């Protein structure tokens, strides 16, 4: 009886294990394997040792992709978390039309990132310059996506517009776990709203803050869709994200092996960042 039960449990997980291994772990192992070769994606290959890895560190294009991706991810993560926390607090207050407003703010989450990107691209190309011209704001009067110093901001705007939706909801969930009596007690003690936020609200939503930071950061580090839609990596290569570089270089450039090495480094970076974030943010939580 016990054996049969054990067998049944095994039967429940083994198919998933096999599928997962075949379509996730096995390709990952292959990727790592090829990163030590000069494979182009077709034809013959040889082992080249660590050459690909060393080349990535000297590759200006790869380094600038890392630079851009980090700049974009950090700024977007911070902005998304600040804005969504503010919106969540607002939505949690005693307001009118709460349901409608909540539904509005969550709406971007259900839309395709790619399509939203195309819509914003139009706005940046045709609408914003019109407004910039009308108001006489110099830097707005031309398409910011065509300006190497500003193009990344356009991408941040789209990312924030879209990701705020999901994070707001997570914070709302966090806020809803806070007992109103805590605030009442604070009111009696004569605490101001600022003090209430830092002393009560923030510590209580801190676990959500941690998760949001990690999840948002990880998603932004993988940015692909919005960049394809908005700039295609340009102007020049200033907004080429790591994902886009691996896709383009790996297939178009016949750099299968080289980009595999890049992907391995990318993986290590993402894991390292996630761990650091969790450590740092959790330590703060305990305080």
């Amino acid at each position: 009886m016990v054996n049969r039960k054990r067998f049944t449990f095994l039967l429940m997980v083994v198919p998933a294990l096999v599928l997962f291994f075949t379509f996730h772990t096995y390709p990952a192992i292959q990727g790592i394997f090829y990163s030590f070769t000069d494979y182009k994606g077709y034809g013959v290959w040889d082992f080249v040792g660590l050459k690909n890895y060393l080349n990535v560190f000297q590759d200006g294009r790869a380094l600038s992709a890392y630079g851009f991706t980090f700049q974009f991810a950090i700024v977007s993560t911070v902005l998304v978390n600040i804005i969504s926390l503010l919106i969540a607090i607002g939505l949690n207050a005693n307001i009118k039309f709460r349901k409608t407003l909540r539904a509005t703010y969550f709406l971007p989450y259900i839309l395709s990132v790619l399509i939203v990107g195309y819509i914003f691209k139009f706005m940046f190309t045709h609408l914003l310059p019109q407004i910039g011209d009308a108001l006489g704001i110099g830097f707005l009067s031309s398409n910011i996506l065509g300006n190497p110093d500003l193009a990344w901001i356009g991408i941040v705007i789209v990312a924030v517009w879209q990701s705020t939706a999901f994070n707001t909801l997570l914070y709302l969930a966090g806020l809803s776990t806070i007992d109103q009596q805590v605030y009442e007690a604070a009111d009696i003690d004569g605490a101001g709203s600022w003090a209430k936020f830092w002393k009560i609200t923030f510590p209580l939503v801190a676990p959500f803050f941690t998760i949001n930071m990690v999840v948002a950061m990880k998603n932004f580090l993988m940015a692909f869709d919005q960049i394809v839609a908005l700039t295609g990596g340009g102007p020049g290569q200033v907004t080429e994200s790591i994902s886009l570089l691996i896709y383009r270089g790996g297939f178009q450039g016949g750099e299968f092996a080289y980009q595999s090495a890049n992907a391995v480094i990318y993986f290590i970076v993402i894991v390292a960042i996630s761990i650091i974030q969790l450590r740092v943010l959790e330590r703060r939580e305990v305080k």
Partner: protein
Amino acid sequence: MNKIAKGLLTVTLGTSLLLAGCGGGDGDGGNADGQVSLELFSNKSESIDTYKGLIEKFEEENPNIDIKLEAPPEAETVLKTRLTKDDLPDIMSIGGNATYGELARAGVFHDFSDSELVGKVQPSYVEMLGKLVGPDEEGTYGLPYATNANTVIYNKEKVEELGIEIPTNWDEFTQALETAKEAGETPIYFTLQEAWTAMSVWNGVAGNLVADDFAERKNAGEATFAEEYDEVADKMLELLDYGHKDNFGIGYGDGNNAFASGEGVFYIQGNWAIPEILKTNPDIELGTFALPSHDNAEENNLVSGVDVALAVSETTEHKEEALKFIEFMLSEETAQTYIDEQKAFSAVENVFQEDPVFEGIREHFEEGTLTSFVDHYYPAGMGTENLVQDFLIKKDKDAALETLDSEWDKVNDR
């Protein structure tokens, strides 16, 4: 029990859907009634309508062959992905550039050497394609079909209004631009938001200034961009001074639109942009000339290359049918339709482009004063277009040429 029944139902439904889908997949390429389905892959979104028309005609003549056209964006990346997948389309209609050379070297194309089809096209363009493949592979892996011209397109009405003579050397060209600028017009309408459009300018300028064997010598380590592209870079920047206020904010589509509606006097683009411009404004009168980047009028040739090469997958299951389509394409009638609609030039013998818009460059074709696209010989993976775009933005000549040198070496070293 109800729940189990429900669960089972969903599983069965899912499985049957899966199986149904798989069944559909098996029929790929041919089925019982002798119907053959071929995939035609094209790298040009401009020619989709033309191809659709031609395919319809072909299918009428060959009712048992069904041709599916695929023309995705970033077509070269997609095609390389398909190569990695070992799943090349049956027929490919692609540009004669570095990617073509790489695919040919990978041995995935059918060799036309023994086919009589080779005799139907101009040998000089066959040679041009051969040069892309390199000396290590012998054979004819693609047939040149349409050729192009990298031109300066101009708005006839404006040029006449401004009293500009068609320039034949660099001085005259800059003077013409100056005249346009002084008259308050936008001399050149740039569309540099899309990096590849920078290459039309680059190829136009470099075509007459850089020696033909640059790529060969560069690969052998005997030449550098820093030494031989100095003048090219200078002249690129000079041209950029004659743009509009948002050179890097406008892309190709918007640019065609703007030029069609009368913005800009000159538009540095290939002949392929002409039908696009006419689509927006069928009444606009356009003219073309070769970009006169050399100071000496006699040295100014027209940059022309193989715009469309037709190739057949070596491993296709339906080679006979695929070759039949190629034969259809190479017929003089089809070739004429193609170049008329696409405003292109034909590599097929005895098929000529008579459109008056090309008055200004006809001479080059007749006298053979042609030169090739310099970037077709650059390695495919180095992302030249983005590097050139970046150069135009930052305007730092020395750094940009150095980057081009190092990127080239790096890609070759991989």
